[in-house]
């Protein structure tokens, strides 16, 4: 019984997904202001860490880390939904089965309260 991360293809899958995901959020006007930073390599590393986490991969991030990282950004449900939408679109583009996309979405959604500061 393999984990979602293994089924998706592990780190290689994250690498394939991260550039796709990053390009999508950069041009999504609902959320691009959060991702359009000058240090693109640092931003990409954050995306990679997020996707690793969402794919159920190895990550030492705690809810507290997520909360601290997003503090003061005034994030709304709309922002969260936009990110989730782009995550889904990225996985769909990589031809990941719908059930697995739902699984990844579930993991990502599990930190919603921390991300939105609720």
């Amino acid at each position: 019984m393999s984990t979602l991360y293994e089924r998706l293809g592990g780190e290689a899958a994250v690498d394939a997904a991260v550039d796709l995901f990053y390009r999508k959020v950069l041009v999504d006007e609902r959320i691009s202001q959060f991702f359009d930073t000058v240090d693109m390599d640092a931003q990409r590393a954050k995306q990679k860490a997020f996707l690793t986490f969402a794919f159920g991969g190895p990550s030492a991030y705690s809810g507290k880390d997520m909360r601290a990282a997003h503090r003061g950004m005034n994030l709304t449900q709309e922002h969260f939904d936009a990110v989730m939408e782009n995550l889904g679109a990225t996985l769909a583009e990589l031809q990941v089965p719908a059930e697995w996309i739902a699984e990844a979405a579930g993991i990502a959604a599990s930190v919603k309260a921390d991300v939105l500061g609720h």
Partner: protein
Amino acid sequence: MTVATLRFQEQAFEAEESETVLECLLRHDVAVPSSCRAGVCQSCMMQAEPGTALPERAQRGLRPSLRQTGHFLACQCPVVEGLQVGSFEQPSCSATVEVVRWASERVARVWLRPERGLGQLPGQFVNVVRPSDGTARSYSVASRSDDALLELHVAQVPDGKLSPWLARAVGETVTLRGPHGDCVYPEDDLDAPLLLAGTGTGLAPLLGVAREALARGHRGRVVLVHGSLDLDGLYLWRELCGLEREYPQLELIGSVGPDAGPYAGVGAELLRRELIEPLLRAELKKLAGWHVYLCGSPAVVKSLKRWAFLAGAALDHIHADPFEPAASV
């Protein structure tokens, strides 16, 4: 129980069995940045002595140019006896200024003879320090590693603290520190198309990479674009045209502002009266599989980096070297 000694910035730290570099340094209260501890976030990136054999795990996820220069993730790297890490600005070496040629009113080409090889790869930069007062400025290396002399392109900064002096310093000794920087030729990818685009003396690292590519028999396209607001700023234009005639795979484009004066000399047919950004956007739409090098004006470099990424270039393959001016004291 100590099983290995780690050297970090001239100090020795005793490491315990299967300790990682990060664990060892944190245990000794050395403030190494870290976050995920899982080899993903790259906060703990450090550099090992050039030539050190590093485990694959400790370099996973790092762009090839960082791997080539000995960078690794401290949280994924077990300490092995004698491992030396930290910043490698020291040791430095002396160099003599041997030749200076003015390429234009504003740019001096300076050739230095270092007392020993710095192991720099063409396109990287070195910090040049004037020994008398420690003033240091960064310049990119336009020459190849096996050239006897290091070639720098020194833009003259009005009332600058180092550039005017350096351009008049034949016979003087300077200290070199480094090398640093990401604009290195991808040794293992002879077929990849290369885009080398820059403004001003951003040409120096681009020229270094281009020379390296051509010398290695690069098979892919090598597109070199040098931009300037005025014609004077294309300070090496004739020489670049010579290179273009010699190497069929080199495509040269000169970009000048719409207000630049008329030009009917060598390579006039390769000159476009269009600023570098709109020129590139119109000329190249898809950059998937390309290696992209962007050097010079920080605003242009940052803007082009975003463009190149959205046009499909992998971020790992975008090598940006913004020439940030020295902060005034």
